[in-house]
């Protein structure tokens, strides 16, 4: 899966939580949860959606690596390539 496919999948997962979201509104280097107003429940649902769509299991200990949009894409790219 290339970066564009991952980006499309992540956006689709995010839109299940925040349907009003447009990709152009996302500042790729800023904290995502603050930008999209994701609370703990939204965040967990986002991770569940990623798991269902990409088959990636993200442990709680890795949450700190997922702060920005860019960081999430990089993390998933590495995880899917492994």
């Amino acid at each position, binding site marked *: 899966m290339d970066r564009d496919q991952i980006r499309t999948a992540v956006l689709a997962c995010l839109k299940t939580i*925040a*349907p*009003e979201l447009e990709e152009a509104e996302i500042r790729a280097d800023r904290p995502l949860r603050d930008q999209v*107003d994701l*609370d*703990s*429940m939204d965040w*967990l*649902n986002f*991770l*569940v959606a990623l*798991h269902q769509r990409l088959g990636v*299991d*993200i*442990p*709680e*200990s890795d949450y700190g690596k997922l702060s920005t949009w860019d960081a999430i894409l990089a993390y998933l790219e590495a995880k899917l390539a492994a």
Partner: protein
Amino acid sequence: MIEFKLPSLGADMDEGRLVEWKVKPGDPVKRGDVVAVVDTSKAAVDVEIWQEGIVQSLLVQPGETVPVGTVLALLSGEGEAAVVPAPAPSPARRPVSPLARKRARELGVDIERIEGTGPSGSVTEQDVARAAEASAPVDRQAQMRQAIAAAMSRSKREIPHYYLGETIPLATAAAWLTACNAERPVAERLLMAVLQLKAVALACREFPDMNGFWRDGAYVASSAIHPGVAISLRSGGLIAPAIHDAADKPLGTLMRDLTDLVRRARSGSLRSSELSEPTITVTNLGDQGVESVFGVIYPPQVALVGFGRIAERPWAENGSLSIRPTVSASLSADHRVSDGHRGALFLADIRELLQHPERL
């Protein structure tokens, strides 16, 4: 004959607009069945029935707005002869004034669907205007803001609030949660909010003066513990539906129920019992970064527990200083029902329960 009335779904509801019937004359219904969808100022709600019987007649039609308490339908109960509904007669052609027909065209209203109130059931210009108003798009956000304004104004006008705050150490709970979640697949992980919710529900067992309703000048404790969970809606506003029997549920069940409740609150498919039955409110604004929350009680409830942000803070104990995760818990309570002393013991109980997460 049993009357099925429009229930009150909260202190901020005076009326509701029937969106859809889920039953028709002749259908059997039992307790807990969803029989209608009603639009309130906050959301479209699946309205349940709490009687058993056979639907005899539907007295209110979709699109009509009626006050709380209006009889929506009649049912025959056990032992009563069920009346098989006669087939509806084919509608006679009704007179429509030319002015009404013109007005209907201008407003884009289907004249055949309008009930006439003029002579011989004729459709008048006023009937058209009323129908157009009823079918106008609802400004949900404005309505919700008005509903919140009405309920919160009533609360501040009628309830003598008192407020208490307590800093609760969460090192044990956080470590327990981390270990617990490491064993669980992502879809079954728990949030600290669920531990907090369960702790409040268990504390309500010991403090019935926090869990109930002030009605008609007196307090009535609730035998059930149904905490209402404040859920912010992405389009603005909030709603606080109940999680039923929270004190009796294991954490995994509570987490599933909470996830489901948040999803349905945001997609607009709550049930009437979830809106009419909360016995205390729990609000959690920690994710938004606030230190503490001092909430406004949702009448006729008598207490609200708020949780702020969980963060590492300095903690002094036994003469030494350490860094621990803590949360600020607050209680807003009704002074007509309890005093600060009871409120302090209630918060202390919540703190103590959160020190033993394995028992929750």
